[in-house]
């Protein structure tokens, strides 16, 4: 099959088989910041924004995302993501870093809808992202810090 995706603002033509998952197509075309974890929709390492919504790319059939607009963590680079990325570093919320792209995207999706989330709302928003290194205390602190900084950034 052949289609066009817009990935991080740029149109790309892609070929894939009818059963391929969006995760595999993205990685095959060089977007290796989209991490492959469980392939079962449970770990959140592969999340991307598809047409503005946070989704597990391992649970999306590429053929069902035809002409879709995809944003990976690299597509967030710039002023919108900087406070989130810096907050994760400053809060010590990154260890091996494998889950971090997903965490940053989930945080971005949360703060876009809800700029001042409470702890419960943060936990719920990140409930699809697993971290096997740090635990979650520092990650939640990072999101709180990012919310604070994003508020001042605007």
């Amino acid at each position, binding site marked *: 099959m052949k289609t066009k995706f817009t990935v991080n603002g740029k149109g790309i033509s892609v070929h894939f088989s*009818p059963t391929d998952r969006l995760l595999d197509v993205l990685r095959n075309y060089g977007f290796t910041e989209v991490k492959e974890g469980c392939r079962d929709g449970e770990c959140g390492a592969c999340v991307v924004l598809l047409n503005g*919504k946070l989704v597990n790319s391992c649970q*999306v059939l590429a*053929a069902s995302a*035809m002409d879709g607009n995809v944003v990976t963590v690299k597509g967030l680079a710039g002023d919108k993501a900087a406070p989130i990325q810096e907050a994760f570093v400053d809060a010590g919320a990154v260890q091996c870093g494998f889950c971090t792209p997903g965490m940053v995207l*989930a945080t971005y999706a949360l703060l876009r809808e809800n700029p001042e989330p409470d702890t419960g709302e943060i936990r719920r928003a990140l*409930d*699809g992202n697993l971290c096997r290194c740090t635990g979650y205390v520092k990650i939640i602190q990072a999101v709180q810090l990012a919310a604070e900084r994003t508020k001042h950034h605007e």
Partner: protein
Amino acid sequence: MEQLNWYYPENLNEAARLVKDGDKAPHSGGTALIRRGFRGIRSIVDLSRLPMNGIEVQGEKIEIGAMCSYSEIIHETGAVFPGHVLVQSLKNSASTPLRNRITAGGSVAAFPAWSDLIGPLLLLNAKVELMGRENGIFSLPEYLLRRELRAGSLITRILMKNYPHIGLHYRETRTQVDYPAFTVTVIAAPAGRNGVFQNLRIAVVGNRERFRRLTELETALNGKLFSHLDNLNIDNYFPVEFPDRKHGSGEYLKHAAEVALKDMLNLIAGGKS
């Protein structure tokens, strides 16, 4: 692998025509198809371009387009009625990125044993609108029980009445992100009306029969004072059996479901949700 064709209908009539023969698998964007695998499937009908994604919450009526995601249901229904049983059940279902993909229609059509949607819909007397081989509006239990309704037809909308209620939803899971072994859903008229159970409805999903309304227990409690609960042996009104699952034996799950139900009824009697 055999050739697999995708179809992208632009309107409902075209989609209905495509699925009518029952040899093409509809795909609404959720996880059912990936989990099922592609064995035996030669054609897939992608429903994402169809106009089936609105939610109307108006007074006593809720209409959910089949392509509405769990997240949209939580957001739209919750904006009007934060304590709605659909909000209570779906907000803990799956995870945020999956709730953004799983659709109401796909979830009803696939009806996995761990469904968090079916219990609330049963209690709200939901109906499904079908197009394809079957056309018309059918009660949810009828749709779930009659296999011939599911083959060759698309769910286009889910319709239900909206009752003022306290809604409680219990999921038997080992961890927060686990699939539930079963769910118990209870709704009742808001507490405070003379300490009496009113419009109490109870559903269990994931049991041997797949789902069950506990109508005998509802009858035994509706119109009775909350204190009646103290003298009622719920075991006598719980004719529900469970298969053994990874979560525990059938016997254990039955006991867990009864305990959960007692706690939920006590919460309603205490006026909390």
